[in-house]
């Protein structure tokens, strides 16, 4: 029974983290049809920015938890939005209209470049900003403990998920984005400044990636290469759920999270396969993912 509880709790905690990581990726893909490999770098940038800002704050003798959270939010949002703007305006803009796979490779090149840029800026020594995580404390369920920081991440994930859903489904801007997704040319003819919408979307997607990194920073030791590890995970979640769908990303994250927790608690040996096995199984039965729309056929 304890194991069942543990699987549920761990599964949902991991799922909320996965959703945070995958949300930006799916938003950018949904609107712009770019599978952004550099999303991992934005995650890493957010983590580095938050970790170094937190390090500075605690070195000043700071000890306020809410200020620490504000620092995480501000640093991640700033670095995400600014680097999103630079990548979109400085590079992707020159490449629009190219093949989907070519765009993917271009963002792969961005990933390579950013990996080294981060190394030049932050060095290779791990950054360790543990204070907020430790300060949040924990509670017990029998022998099991749950970190309240993890619950906070879960709450943030729900808020971001609902926010994105509201933005895309209920606001005028969301409806404009959906018309871009469906028919870019007509939207343009109706006066939609598609390029500006792309810039905004990319900045929002990039910021979501950086926020995911920022809130993860206090849990992990921030080292070069963390972005590369995250990106395939995010891909797997997004593809399982259906590319470009927020609901899909959420459901995909929950499925992957629960499957992984089950495997770790009962058959730890299978952990490495489980994500890919879930993805392959879903694709076998639903070739476009759980909530994916069939791509228009070429006629």
């Amino acid at each position, binding site marked *: 029974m304890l194991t069942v509880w543990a699987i549920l709790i761990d599964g949902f905690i991991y799922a909320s983290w996965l959703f945070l990581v995958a949300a930006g990726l799916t938003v950018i893909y949904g609107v712009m049809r770019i*599978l952004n490999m550099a999303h991992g770098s934005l995650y890493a940038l957010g983590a580095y920015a938050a970790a170094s800002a937190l390090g500075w704050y605690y070195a000043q003798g700071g000890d306020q938890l809410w200020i620490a959270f504000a620092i995480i939010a501000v640093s991640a949002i700033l670095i995400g939005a600014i680097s999103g703007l630079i990548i979109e305006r400085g*590079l992707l803009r*020159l*490449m629009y209209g*190219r093949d*989907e*796979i*070519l765009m993917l*490779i*271009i963002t*792969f*090149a*961005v*990933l*390579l*470049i950013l*990996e*080294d*840029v981060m*190394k*030049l800026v932050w060095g290779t020594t791990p950054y360790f900003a543990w204070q907020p995580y430790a300060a949040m404390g924990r509670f017990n369920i029998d022998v099991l403990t749950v970190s309240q920081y993890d619950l906070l991440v879960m709450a943030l994930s729900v808020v971001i998920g609902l926010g994105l859903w509201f933005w895309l489904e209920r606001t005028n801007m969301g409806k404009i984005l959906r018309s871009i997704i469906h028919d870019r040319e007509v939207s343009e003819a109706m006066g939609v400044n598609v390029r500006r919408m792309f810039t905004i979307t990319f900045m929002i997607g990039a910021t979501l990636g950086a926020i995911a990194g920022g809130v993860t920073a206090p849990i992990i030791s921030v080292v070069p290469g963390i972005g*590369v590890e995250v990106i*395939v995970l995010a*891909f*797997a979640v997004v*593809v399982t759920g259906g*590319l470009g769908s927020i609901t899909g990303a959420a459901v995909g994250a929950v499925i992957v999270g629960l499957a992984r927790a089950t495997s770790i608690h009962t058959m730890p*040996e299978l952990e*490495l*396969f489980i994500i*890919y*096995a879930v*993805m*392959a199984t879903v*694709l*076998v039965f639903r*070739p*476009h*993912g759980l909530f994916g729309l069939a*791509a228009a*056929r*070429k*006629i």
Partner: protein
Amino acid sequence: MKLERTELSLIGVAIAIAILAQFSPNWLVFTLTLAISTALVVMGVVMLMRAGLVSFGQGLFYCLGGYAVGLGGRFLGITDALVLVGLGVVVTTVVAMILGLLMTRYREIFFAMLSLAFSMILYGILVKSHGLGSTDGFGVVDWTLLGFTPGDGQATTTALMLALVLALAIALFLNRYFKSSIGLACEAIRENEVRVEYMGISHRKVLYINYVLAAAVGSVGGSMTALAAGHVDPTMAYWTISGEFVFIAILGGTGHVAAPFIAALIFTLVRTYAVELAPNAWQMILGIVLLLIILFLPKGIWSLFTRKKGAAS
């Protein structure tokens, strides 16, 4: 059988490399061997690209080819390089024939991600295989070639010669294949799948044959890498390696059977010199070079070599 111009020049270039290799420093011979092996895998990626599919899991077949060489030598006692390469092709073909039944149903990003998933599952299995050295991998046995045992210092050159011969044979075959009805049908599918069906060709069958062939070619690349480097490990199936193959395929372009070879050589040289000149920033150099090529040569490096293209633009 009359040889056409492309075939003659392919043979000529292969002979020229074989002669030049006798006077080249050993490291260059080795790098060349690796580049040719890589190019063979990239060739598989290009074959799929010609049919409009992009594989982010070609490392699966590269790894199968490599492990067939490693395991064949270790557990079956096979030492002849050609037999080992053949073993890899057989194993890979069988696997590809099974996976192909499923894979040919997928297009675009879903094909890419599903191929990635299968390659990562192989990676997971190998990492879990403690007896095979897990991630450390294991060494390839000393090999022979048709009864000849390369002595000290000869192994590198022998590997290059073998790679050259195999690559030439494959290039000549593919050059014809691209112009055959299946090869042309692949391109037609990329342009317009539905119309191909109207023409009475089963696109599934065409894609299936193309998929299996691409896998077999990739396996030869993996086997040659294993023979040359003398070591195999699960990294060969990791997604970043597959990503590298796509990267090189795009560098070269799909225009010509020689493009992957040129792209692989340039990629390898850029990388090795970047690693030497800027050990802390070689990834950045690689990324920038890639972006510049995509920006200025959208059809790949090969477009530099086609005069027609220059006139048209």
